[in-house]
């Protein structure tokens, strides 16, 4: 087998893996159920935010936090929670 043939086989396998990922993504029916379960729970409890960052109230509920919350200690205080560096402040109106 020539080196180029081996490469083509390897590339074909790699692309098959990519197609596999895509198939996996479309066929994950259980996850779709998860989506529905989460949406149903959000509706039932009237939730407003993802519970990803629970360290401070303005990172737990970014959509509900007032604009001063990250700087609550005193005006101009530096935001001290690590999440503040990965979550951008809400956009102005």
């Amino acid at each position: 087998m020539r080196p180029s043939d081996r490469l083509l086989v390897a590339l074909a396998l790699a692309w098959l893996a990519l197609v596999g990922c895509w198939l996996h993504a479309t066929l994950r029916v259980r996850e779709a159920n998860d989506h529905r379960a989460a949406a149903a729970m959000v509706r039932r409890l009237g939730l407003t935010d993802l519970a990803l960052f629970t360290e401070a109230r303005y990172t737990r509920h970014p959509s509900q936090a007032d604009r001063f919350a990250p700087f609550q200690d005193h005006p101009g205080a530096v935001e001290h929670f690590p999440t503040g560096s990965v979550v951008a402040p809400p956009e102005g109106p």
Partner: protein
Amino acid sequence: MTARAWLERQRSLLDYTLASLGRRRAKNLSLLLVYGLVVFAVASTLLLAEALRAEATAALRGAPDVVVQRLQAGRHDLIAAAEVERLAAIRGVERAAGRRWGYLYRPVSKANLTVLVPERFWGSDGEVVIGEGVARVEHLSAGATIYLPTGSGEVLAFTVREVIPPESSRFTTDLLLLSEASFLRLFGAAPDRYTDIALTVPNAREIPKVAEKVLLLLPGARAITRLEMSRTYQSIFDWRSGLVMAMLSAALLAFALVAWDKAAGLSAEERREIGILKAIGWDVSDVLLVKAWEGAVVSAAAFTGGLVAAYLHVFVGSAALFAPVLQGWSTLSPRLHLAPALDGLQLATLFFLTVVPYTVATVVPAWRSATADPDAVMR
């Protein structure tokens, strides 16, 4: 040249390219590794952000249409129960409901819980329903007892009625649900004050107008529409800002370094190789084709490898490597078992941002050497 002859020629060039890459095996393998890692980091970030954004957008369709908060000196303050009636009277509002919720810090588990009174709590007064994360860090299960201190120092005992199923943990992991009477006892809250008021507006097109009317009615208040909640998450997981940008910039800088190193020039050995090829009769176009193939082979391998690894990392491995970054100081974090959401345009952008510059960076210095006199190049 027939198509078959052209194909045969490309295959021969490819054979030569692979042999040439093989001669500098260690260097090329390390390059492939770094390149693949960059694609992996960028793709993982994009896949995670896209999945979280899709999740937030889909689930927040069920969020309240408008949430009305009272502000006091720029801070969120409790709102009088009497306002519920006034807000319900706004044309377009089907119903207004006062909501009670707050936060509770648990010194033992160092976790911040979100305490919420559902509109229709399905347990009795001495019972609570907890999120999957709360059950995990507090070592609780259905039937267990949880002790919560009140503001006055008294300790209340609650029975865990049930644990919310993990399917919705992205939204509910830190929740502690209880009845209104329990909430009032626990926090010593005034019964005639709510945390905020949720409005139901059946016609989505009326929501902005309703929000305007709320502000006319309660000038010091803040009306947060569902669209704004959704937009908050769009902007948090937007690739230009916040989370994605923080991770992306480091990876892109690393990649720029690799590409720069490559574009800055060829090694003496590579220049000699090009000189020899020219001397034995290769065209400039042949040399460039070999180099283009070299760039394409390395980038295609790194791109596919990196992308597949990123997919497995995010959707099979629950984005384990990003967990410490996402968690920050939070003790309670949901398990990121996300539904895959692939954005073709984003992946295509990633492809063109990584594969094309690298291939060009490989060809340009080769072109400079290939157009020079072979004798001068080999010297």
